């Protein structure tokens, strides 16, 4: 997979979350990790790459194909991808099973039975078979995030986009979720991951995009980035974040 943005601008009022962001990954980057300080534009870039946000200007290309800017086209892009958020964002009125199955029947044309089978299969794979009929409030944070990953994977997305999936979790649950993500990466799932877990990023990333203040400072193969970050900003960031780990 090749990801590319060209001068992407996304504003919220007068604040530019992305301020002319341009980068290009290699041709076969499988796991792209977005790194950088909070408020630097990671979450916005992730949403723009997945079609969840339409940029005010600039282009996003996935495998050399520009993403459409019109709402209907953007919805089409969106439906090929899967998203996981920092706050899980499961639907609280539905059970884990229903959370996974509902988008399959409503959006992806599954029959009810097929959707239930697929949901059961995924929840079992993510170790939630015994919790399938619980509502989100009855699940731990780690279980909720795994259910959210199941929901995102259910439609076999081209891209799985994860926005700081472990930032709200304690170290044990963080471990549970990172295990799942690593397995997915090993199975060949294409992933975009925004995170502060630098040591985890080192293990799974093929490509790193480092951004701060809405601009992209570095976009390089992961091995090269971690061995020798070019910008002093990235150097300082890595030093600061690894100080107590």
């Amino acid at each position, binding site marked *: 997979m090749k990801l590319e943005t060209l001068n992407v601008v996304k504003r919220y009022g007068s604040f530019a979350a992305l301020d002319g962001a341009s980068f290009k990954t290699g041709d076969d980057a499988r796991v792209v990790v977005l790194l950088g300080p909070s408020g630097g534009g990671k979450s916005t870039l992730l949403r723009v790459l*997945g079609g*969840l946000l339409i940029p005010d200007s600039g282009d996003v290309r996935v495998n050399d194909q520009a993403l459409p800017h019109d709402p209907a086209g953007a*919805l089409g892009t*969106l*439906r090929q991808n899967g*998203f996981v*958020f920092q*706050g899980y*964002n*499961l*639907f*609280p*009125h539905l059970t884990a099973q229903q959370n996974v199955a*509902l*988008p399959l029947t*409503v*959006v*992806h044309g599954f029959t009810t039975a097929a959707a239930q089978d697929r949901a059961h299969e995924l929840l079992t794979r993510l170790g939630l078979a015994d919790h399938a009929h619980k*509502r989100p*409030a*009855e699940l731990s944070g780690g279980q909720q995030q795994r259910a959210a990953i199941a*929901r*995102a994977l259910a*439609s076999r997305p081209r891209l799985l986009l994860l926005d700081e999936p472990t930032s709200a979790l304690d170290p044990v649950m963080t471990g549970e979720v990172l295990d799942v993500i690593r397995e997915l990466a090993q199975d060949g799932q294409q992933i975009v991951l925004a995170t502060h877990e630098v040591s985890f990023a080192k293990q799974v990333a093929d490509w790193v995009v480092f951004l701060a203040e809405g601009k992209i400072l570095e976009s390089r193969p992961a091995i090269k980035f971690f061995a020798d970050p070019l910008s002093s900003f990235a150097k300082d960031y890595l030093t600061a974040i690894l100080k107590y780990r």
Partner: protein
Amino acid sequence: MLSLTARSLFWTLVLLTAAALALYFTFSTVHYRWNWESVWTYRYQFAWGWLTTMAISVVAMVLSVLVGFALMLSRRSPILPLRLFATGVVELLRGSPLLVQLLIGYYIIATALQVNDKLLVGTLLLGLFEGAYLSEIFRGAVESIGATQREAARAVGFNTVQTYRYVIIPQAVRRALPGTTGQLVSLIKDSSLLSVIAIEELVQKVRILNSSSYTALEGYLPLAAAYLIVTLPLSWYAGRLERRFAYET
């Protein structure tokens, strides 16, 4: 320790007895001479009035929920004129007395449109009036569903209609239920105002009864009971619905 149900039952009985005694002594100190025969004489009139009130209320309830839903959606619409129109309608209907709306609606607007069926006009006006209140209850509930839920709905690929249908409304219904119940109970009682355009619903029947039998208060006690017969089960049923929709967030 007794179970909660047993204790609730016990205290309900105590409070009811206390209320009954208080009422009895209040009434007995006033030395009013009750004349229940006259009420009994007019029992069919009374029953007919009650049925009219119920029929008006049920139709107006359905109408008010539909109107409330439409106004709520319009106020959230991206189309500016529609949004302004809905805001204007809500403020006008909520901000002015139902009494005035009924008088102007029936004697001016309905007359101008050559509609003479006062039952139809009254029910329609009542449904519109309560619908304006309901729309704001619905809007509050819908807007209380956070941006993260909307984003999650979009992220799984739902379009706007699907987002409302599967994510926002199921959660909003639960939050709107207590307010909606209160409003529907109000609607049943507000239907008594329809007597100003000479609709012979329950209150109007009781007035007729009181004046033709030269009594002052006899009709009003059964009147209160006749309203409570419907409003209490309505509240009870809504409470059950609330528990059915209950889930932690």
